[in-house]
């Protein structure tokens, strides 16, 4: 059996096992989740090593570990999987976030069984999306990942949870409506001579290239590219479709916020890249300017908004808008360096935003408030949590030695390859975000962690317990590892990028 299918099978088996267990046996369920999460982490680590080894030998094929099986013949739908450097990086990221998310959820007491069942369903969707090479299966897994969000937020959330859950789901569903049109548009144009279409990404890409080389009609790209890009852009929190993010994150339970901001939002960036830009490169190049403007706004606008928020989760949600905006912005620069930076930024943002949400959840669990005006001087009370928070903040503002710096610098250097006035202006605008980020990060750090203790009741709070430490330290280790030795990851991702970057005029 193909190693990639394990990413779907392991969670499925876990679901089956947990389904059979009595919901009262909470610790047993948690143990199973930890073991399963660990198994997934091991699988992805093993996959990474295998991939790097195999890449040494097989340098030509675009995807490795490929497998394909007919699923629904009527429409030529396959279950086909395969990975390149980018998907491997995303799988590794997902596994780290899933296992740490499990540990963060240890404190969950309410309807544990159901919670973890939906949690697993969400991860199946995520994993399935990253391993798929078939448009239809990709879309299917995408929807599988979205639906559990509604229940997870609506049932286990806090605050205006029904409103937020509804808003998030409806907006993302709106996005997937665009997406579906886009995908069927691609399907019906995938075979130039007419006849049965194909959903296989590689085949479509080859056909589109051949079509273009023969001077065929590619005007359909100009309709379906914006649809697909916007469809994924909604999930990638692109301005002005980002407003689900602050409310959704604020209401979601901790681990769901982690998984959502850490991994699910990456589906947006990954989809824009793998589907919209890879399959419709000409339209992408023509229409990039529109989206460069929108994402450029996202970057600065999100950062400025974050400066005046008072809810910790809102701050982080707006910060995600800014950082994810940078991902799409870099993708649209359409050269190898900037695109590599975009994927690095996805990994880096996934890790650090997961860390942020985990820590916010831990702090909220203790102080029962997320309002920064009601907290102060927590460093003295819970030093471990607060030091972790400072590290997360430093990663977010792009401190060298942590992952954010590597990603941002790669993006800026890559984006600077465009010499025209338009691109330069937006790159410099993007650079300005590193200052604004510092402002809102330090505002929070200075307000809630440092200074005198604000609320006398907080003085008796306890520091992190073991499972919280595991989660936080695990994420920090990953962030620091990428930050200190980025070369292997950057090269692995770069290898995958080349296949797509070569489609663009100044790609390589």
């Amino acid at each position, binding site marked *: 059996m193909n190693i990639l299918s394990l990413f779907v099978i392991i969670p499925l088996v876990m679901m089956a096992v947990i389904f059979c267990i009595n919901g009262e046996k909470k610790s047993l369920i948690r143990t199973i989740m930890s073991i399963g999460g660990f198994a997934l982490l091991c699988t992805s680590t093993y996959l990474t090593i295998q991939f790097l080894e195999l890449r040494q030998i097989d340098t030509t094929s675009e995807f490795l570990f490929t497998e394909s099986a007919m699923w629904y013949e009527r429409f030529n739908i396959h279950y086909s999987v395969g990975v390149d450097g980018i998907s491997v990086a995303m799988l590794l990221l997902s596994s780290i976030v899933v296992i740490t998310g499990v540990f963060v959820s240890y404190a969950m007491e309410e309807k544990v069984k159901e919670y973890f069942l939906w949690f697993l369903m969400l991860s199946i969707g995520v994993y399935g999306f990253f391993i798929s090479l078939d448009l239809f299966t990709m879309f299917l897994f995408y929807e599988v990942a979205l639906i559990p969000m509604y229940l997870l937020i609506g049932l286990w959330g806090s605050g205006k949870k029904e409103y937020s859950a509804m808003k998030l789901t409806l907006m993302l569903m709106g996005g997937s409506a665009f997406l579906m049109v886009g995908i069927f548009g691609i399907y019906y144009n995938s075979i130039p001579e007419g006849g049965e279409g194909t959903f296989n990404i590689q085949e479509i890409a080859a056909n589109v290239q051949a079509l273009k080389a023969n001077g065929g009609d590619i005007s359909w790209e100009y309709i379906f590219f914006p649809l697909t890009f916007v469809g994924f852009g909604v999930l990638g929190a692109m301005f002005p479709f980002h407003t689900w993010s602050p409310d959704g994150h604020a209401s979601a339970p901790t681990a769901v916020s982690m998984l959502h901001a850490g991994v699910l939002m990456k589906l947006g960036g990954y989809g824009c890249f793998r589907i919209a830009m890879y399959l419709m490169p000409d339209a992408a190049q023509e229409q990039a300017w529109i989206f460069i403007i929108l994402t450029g706004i996202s970057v600065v606008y999100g950062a400025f908004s974050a*400066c005046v928020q008072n809810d910790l989760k809102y701050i982080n949600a707006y910060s995600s808008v800014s950082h994810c905006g940078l991902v799409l912005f870099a993708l649209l620069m359409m050269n190898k360096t900037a695109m590599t930076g975009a994927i690095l930024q996805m990994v880096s943002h996934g890790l650090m935003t997961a860390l942020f949400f985990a820590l916010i959840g831990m702090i909220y669990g203790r102080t029962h408030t997320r309002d920064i005006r009601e907290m102060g001087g927590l460093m003295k009370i819970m030093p471990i949590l607060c030091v972790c928070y400072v590290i997360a903040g430093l990663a977010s503002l792009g401190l060298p*030695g942590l992952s954010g710096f590597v990603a941002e610098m790669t993006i800026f250097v*890559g984006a600077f390859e465009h010499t025209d006035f338009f691109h330069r202006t937006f790159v410099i605008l993007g650079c300005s975000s590193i*200052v604004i980020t510092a402002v809102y990060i*330090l505002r929070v750090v200075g307000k809630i962690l440092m*200074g005198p203790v604000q609320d006398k009741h907080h003085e008796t709070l306890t520091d992190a317990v073991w499972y919280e430490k595991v989660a936080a330290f695990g994420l920090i280790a990953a962030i620091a590892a990428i930050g200190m030795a980025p070369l292997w990851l950057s090269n692995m991702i770069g290898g995958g990028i080349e296949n797509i970057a070569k489609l663009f005029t100044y790609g390589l």
Partner: protein
Amino acid sequence: MEQLASLAPYVLILPLCMFLILGLFGKKMCPKVSGLLGTTVFGVVSVICYYIALKYFFSGDYQIGETYQQVTLFNMEWLRMNEDLVISIGFLLDPLSAIMLIVISTVSLMVHIYSMGYMHGEGGFQRFYAILSLFSFAMLGLVVATNIFQMYIFWELVGVSSFLLISFYYFKHSAVRAAKKAFIVTRFADMFFLIGILILSYYTRTFDFDKLTFITDGHVDAIVNSDLRTMTFLGFPVISIAMFLIFLGGAGKSAMFPLHIWLPDAMEGPTPASALIHAATMVVAGVYLVARLFPIYTFEAPHVLEIISYIGAFTSIFAAIIACAQTDIKRVLAFSTISQIAYMMVALGVSGYGGVNGLGYTASMWHLFTHAMFKALLFMAAGAIIHAVHSNEMDAMGNLRKKLPITHITFLIACLAIAGIPPFSGFFSKDEILVAAFETNKWVFAVEYFVAGLTAFYMFRLYYRIFWFGEPEGGYEHEPHEAPLNMTFPLMFLAAVTVITGISWAFGKLSFTELISSDFTGYEIHTHWNIALPSIGAGVVGILIATFLYLERTGRPNKAVSYIKKPYLWAYNKFYIDEIYLFVTNNIIFQRICQPIAWFDRHIIDGFMNLLSWVTNKTSQETKEIQSGYVQQYAWVFIMGVITIVLLSINL
């Protein structure tokens, strides 16, 4: 060469390991152990640094004729952007980095020793040593950088360690505010630095210093062979814009006007940290940056160099005036630091290239060296004084010369050095700066000459107020006593360095111009007595005025102030620059930009989404009436529909 190459990595690895060990396990160690461990390991690092630097300067292996060679001891690929642009972490050895190695390792080691006494019994002792190690790592990495991006990486790291040290007393509001201010102001400057790097590297296709500063026939190859030579933007040459942006990054770290506002506030940190970071090492990074890229400045962007000299001149006199009116002794020293760093910038600004033309360059680097020694000494002495009287304010001091004898003598030596009195080290470096300025730009020279006198005045004002003047009103609560040996030893050591470098220069045993020069080729100069004598005169006049006003407690200072009330108030309030910044950040950025954007997001963008859902909801509410379940209604609609269709079809 091989020997040095095998030693060089330890210069970076050891402090980094110390940071990790003390940071992760410091809590489990007893404070004394962690302090000793940190100091011992840094002692080893210092020995290695000295060995490398001395070997480089004096063994002759690295010289061809009189010219020092640039050698890369190691260079490791860290991140590959594309075919040309590679960020490496490496070790570049040339006179510039060698002299910086000596400065950093000396001051840092002294601060390590000094802190054992000064920080004794403070909470977070281990944390202090951990951050000190992080800082030393970052600063050493910065000066040995082989490429401009490595420099940027370590540049950011020194920034964050500075942040962590300023906010060391994190439970104090003022400390947190100062730390935030320092970080954000320098970060703002770093943004320009980054854009400058991006422009420069995009066109030259390299980050490496050895390629960026390679010269043939009076031009920098990397620039000449690129589009930068002819490109202009809005009428300015792009190379000038890029080099000016890079300078702005340096101006942020080196506290040049108007980015100087963070440095005085940074004094909220523990005094040893101020001595190391905010006096001797990190704040001169900007000077080092300009010196490192000096060939580009002098050959390709001479106008920027001129601007640098004007900014430096303005900053030096501006800060010196403020220093005259401050009452917090650490703030006096902070403004003095700003003024002195500006002095170094001026020296670079007026310097030419090669031989005697490069006198400003040599003078700048040597002033960096001598200033680091005596300013670190001043800060550490201030720390000893603050320890003794438990206050930063001058009013709480006075008549301490008998009570703190060692501190007194060493402080006096440092004051004489900074005032430019021979034979102390400051005289020589300052004199060369004045000579270089005199030969290039008379206006700048005049300003710097005046600043020299002003410096002598405010330093001796400080000296007399602390050690003479008379005891504070009400006397001392606790009898002040001399600091322990681990605090006084660094003072004595640095005082000795100040005296010995001065004297050996005077007797021709040590020739700075042979070690450091703009083209790394030694040359000879003689003391210019026509400038040296008047500059000594300015210093002496400054000292005499200070003696007249502050030697004893009299009404003279108040009387003097009453003549210049307005200017005094302005200087006392630092010319209200902080207030301007506060206004811009609070009233403009936060209230006029951030708040409206946040409001727009919640009410317009999100409001539109909510409107959509409201419309959908409302429509379905309305239309659901249609499906009422009443057969009569359906029949009515059915019949009316049929009639309408029939009528329509008849018409057609």
